[in-house]
Each structure stands twice: as structure tokens, then as C-alpha cells.
């Protein structure tokens, strides 16, 4: 099981300023394999989130291809890509990502419910237990703290049981204890279930949980040292 970004780049139209376009992500290649946790760090505006969105099928690259095994993600029609994302690729976006009119549990089960699949309620409850939000199932997102909302988004992604899980700043709004809890949960998910986890973060502590790590600088992807084996238990 492999995800491969082949020479992808992203160019945005700049509405103000001198040049018409700016290159958020310069052409790059990247492979994600089952069983590994990859961490991407970098300054704000360096193109990390853009890269993550392109990898998880949410943002089409200006050039290049993203391969999911033998399937080119952006050659699929919207229906097929959406279905694939719902089943095989999960993403935890930055900021709030809960629908206010649904309860926490309904938010977590949303991907399965959208496609009428059987509801992974026990999985959801296990992940909620693990991330210490088991008591919030019937709560509304408006009643939750920022940290709790982050964990709801992570539980939703984990409950999808995806082959590839992409998390954008999953530890923002979290205290130290919960930061460690989330990072170890994501790493264990990759290792124990033989899935791939890709984390974009400012949190330097995350490096300790990475099998591979990268740095993003001015839209360029720069490999960091191999961190495998350095993670705490």
C-alpha cells in the first residue's frame, strides 16, 4: 500500500501584490508507505497545509500526480474520489472541524453515515475512550473546548480506519499530556494496524514520534534525519 506524490506543485493566483501567481509548493516527490509515521514541520506559510491537502485528495495540484496505489487521485471523478476519501483516506484539518448541528458522536460517525455504511460505533467509543473524550458523545460541539474539539476530529479520522491518515496541527490547543496522548495514539495506529500517518505540525515534540520527517521551507520539501526508533514508549 503506497501513496506517491509525483512532481506535484501548487500555484495560487495572488489577488494583491506584484506577481500574478505565487508557488505555494514547489515541484516535489514524496512516498508514504504502510506502517510509517511521517512528520512535516516548517514555518507558517511554508506550504505544509497545501501539501497535506494535495496528498489527501482535498486540493488538486497545479501540476503532477498523486497516486493511491495504482490510482491517480485527481484523475478520478468527484464521486469516486469522494468515496475513496471516505473509505481509505482520512484528514484532520486545522481549526474547528465539527458540524454544530450534530452531536459529537454523530460528527465522528459522519463519514460512514454519509454512505450508509454500518456504523462503527464500538470503534468510535474505543477511540473516544483512548483520547479521553468518552463522556462527550452526546454533547454539542459548541459546548466543547478547543482541545476537546481537536480530539473529536482525530477520533473521527481514526474511526474511519483509513489506510492513510493526514493530520494538520493535531496537537494545537492541547496541553502537554494530551499532546503526548494524541501523538502516541497516531504513531500506534500506524504501527499496530500497518497504516500510514502523515502529521503536519509546529510541535517539535512530534519529531520524537516520527519514522521519517521533513521540513518545508518556502514551498520546498527538505528531508530531515531518520528518526526511527527515537520515539518514547
Amino acid at each position, binding site marked *: 500500500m503506497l501513496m506517491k506524490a509525483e512532481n506535484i506543485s501548487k500555484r495560487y493566483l495572488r489577488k494583491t501584490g506584484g506577481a500574478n501567481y505565487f508557488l505555494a509548493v514547489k515541484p516535489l516527490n514524496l512516498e508514504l508507505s504502510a506502517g510509517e509515521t511521517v512528520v512535516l514541520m516548517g514555518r507558517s506559510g511554508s506550504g505544509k497545509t497545501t501539501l497535506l491537502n494535495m496528498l489527501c485528495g*482535498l486540493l488538486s495540484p497545479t501540476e503532477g500526480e498523486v497516486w493511491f496505489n495504482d490510482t491517480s487521485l485527481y484523475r478520478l471523478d*468527484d*464521486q469516486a474520489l469522494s468515496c475513496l476519501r471516505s473509505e481509505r483516506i482520512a484528514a484532520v*484539518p486545522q481549526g474547528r472541524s465539527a*458540524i454544530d448541528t*450534530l452531536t459529537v458522536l454523530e460528527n465522528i*460517525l*459522519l*463519514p460512514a453515515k*454519509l454512505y450508509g455504511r454500518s456504523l462503527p460505533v464500538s470503534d468510535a467509543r474505543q477511540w473516544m475512550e483512548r483520547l479521553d473524550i468518552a463522556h462527550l458523545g452526546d454533547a454539542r460541539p459548541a459546548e466543547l473546548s478547543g482541545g476537546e474539539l481537536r480530539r473529536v476530529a482525530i477520533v473521527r479520522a481514526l474511526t474511519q480506519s483509513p489506510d492513510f491518515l493526514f493530520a494538520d496541527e493535531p496537537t494545537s490547543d492541547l496541553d502537554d499530556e494530551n499532546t503526548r496522548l494524541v501523538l502516541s495514539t497516531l504513531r500506534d495506529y500506524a504501527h499496530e494496524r500497518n497504516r500510514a500517518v502523515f502529521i503536519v505540525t509546529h510541535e517539535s515534540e512530534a519529531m520524537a514520534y516520527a519514522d521519517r520527517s521533513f521540513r518545508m521551507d518556502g514551498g520546498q520539501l527538505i528531508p530531515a534525519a531518520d528518526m526511527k526508533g527515537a520515539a518514547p514508549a
Partner: protein
Amino acid sequence: MNSISLPVKNLLRRPGRTMALTLLTAFLALAVFGGSVVVLSLRSGLNSLEARLGADIILVPSEAQSKVSFQNMFLQGTTGAFYMDAAVLDKALEVEGVEKAAPQTFLASLKADCCSIKIQVIGIDPQRDFTVQPWIARSLTGALGDMDVAVGCKVEADVGEIIRIYEQRCKVVARLEATGTGLDTAVYCNMNTMNALLQAAEAMGVSHRIESGDQVISAVYVKVKDGYDIGAVNSRLNGHIRKVTAVRTRSMITGVSDSLAGVSRTVTILIAAVWVLAFIILLLAFALIIRERKREFAVLRLAGASRGMLSRMVLLESAMCGLLGGLAGVGLAALFLFPFARLIESALKLPYLMPRTGTVLLLAAGTVLLSALVAALSSVIAAFRLSRVDPGIALREGN
């Protein structure tokens, strides 16, 4: 929670927003349904008046036109009486082009001890009559006997009840269907009964009859033979019979028809204005709501919803608002239109006859569907624009 249940939850859990959109569409439905029922009622009223008059020409005494307004007699049930010699009937039948002629005699009862109610009494000759008799026949099997009366639907008397007219006891044998005109407030009897009533009125000093002999009538209803020009026959009647005026019924109805066209035009313009206004407001409302919910839709995309799913959800949600609004608007209009039909009729001073229940139900269903459709249509642009947005960009913008 799929593309149907999610919109339902959204509507239920955002009551303020739902209420606002529902009210907007209710306003639209109220205007469409209310306006249409009023226009239809006016049209049915006019058709009914035409059918009840049923004649091409009416002959009345020349001085009658100055005594009462025919239009008011037929439209608003104003009471009045005028008389001429019954021989006018035979003279009318002699005129070339006259196919049928039937007499009617009018008598106004009094609001006094001698009479139960103040009404217009109309005597007809069941053998000759071709205007009122077919209408009476729908409610009464057999002929009107002596001292029997058939009452218009707005006369407060039930079948079997005895009403007094100039101290004469008349039995109500039938209640007639509504016509939406002044004819609904009249009482109908045969000529024997009418003569008895006229004599009783005279005996009480209420002088209805003029110096025109024993046998009097008030009007002769004339049907022109096919192929004859009504105007020409009208002129011949005016020339042939002295002291009588022949009036074309079309000319009596033209005034009503013109007023009706005016009211219809006003109502139609109002409906169109409300439509356009409501559509624009809904368009803006949905655009604003969807902009506000950009992040919510991005989350749905993130969870795997396709563009088609999102569009369906948005359209369904707005259609549901439209449906609710349509039901509320139709209900509200019905609350005013039906209990206050008589008030509307007297305010408009035009024939006003509610359409049949089936027509009203169809109109109501059509209005509700239309409201749902308009609400859905007004969200199409917003739904389309929303479905084009890259979820990655929407998530960023929504932050």
C-alpha cells in the same frame, strides 16, 4: 444521517434560520394562494351570474331603469320591484328572432312584523322559465307548488321551515346552490304564489302594483334564436313593445366584467411583485447562509461527501423550507379567505363564488409545490458555487 436526514437535522437544530426562511416562503405562498382564490372566486361569480341570467335580453318597464339599479339587484341583492302588463310576454314572442321568453315578477318583502325577513321574492313560470328553473331543479325534484318557496343559499331559512311574507305562510322546499351573486339572497316561488303575495301586500297597503291591469310581471327574459343578431332583435323588441325597454344582458355584465378584469390585473401584478421580491430575498438569504456555512460544507467534503451530495443536501434543505413555508402560507390564507368570504364579497361589490373544494385543494397543493420549487431554485446558484469550491481552500477560508 444521509443526504436526507442531515438537512432535516439542520432545519430542526437551527430553528431561527429555519423560521426566517419558512416565513419568507410562507409570504410567497400566501400571496399566490390567496390571490388566486380571490381571482378564481370572482371569475366563478361572473360565470355563475351569466349562467343565472341565462338570457340574451331582458325586457323591463321603461321607468324601471330609473327606479332601481339592475346591477345592484343581481350583484348585491338589493330589493326592488316594478311592474308591467303580463301581455308583454306574448308581444315579445311575436317578434322575429325570439326563441323563448319567460316572465318573472318581483316583490320586495318588508322588515316588519308581517315578514320574517327582508328579501327579494321572485315569481317564475316553471313551464316557461329557462333561467332559474334549471338551477332550482338541481335542489328540488318536482315543481314548486303553491305557497312553496325555494330559497337562495344566503337566506336564513331551512327546508321545511315556514316563513311569513306579508302574513302569508310559505313553506321552504329547497335551498339553492350558491351563485355568488345577489340571487343568493332571493326567494323563488311560482306565479300563483306570487299573485297571492302581491294581493296580500296590496291588502296591507303596501302598493306594489301599478295601474296595469290584473296580471302583472316585472321582467321578460328573452332567448334569441341561433343565427339572429342579438342587437337587431333587441332593437326590434324596443320598437315593437311600447313603454318597455329591452336591455342586453351582456351590457349588464360588461361593467362587472370590466371591474373583474381590473381586480384580476391588480391581484396578478401583486402576486408577480411578491414572487420577484421573495425570490430575490431568498436568493440573497441562501447566498449569505451558504457563505456562513462554508466551513460546515468543507467538513462534509472532508468526511467524503461528493459535490453532488452537497448540492442535493442544500437543495433539499431549501425545498423543505419552501414546503413548510408553502403549507404555512396556504394555511394562513385559508384562515382568512374562507371564514371571511362574505366580507370579501361585500368589500369587492362583485359576484364572488368560491371555487369547488377540489379546485381549492389542487390550487393549495400546487402552491405548496411551487413554494418548494422556488425555494430550491433560489438556492441553486449558491449550491452550484459551493460545490465548485475546493474543500482544502474552503477549510482555510472558513478558519
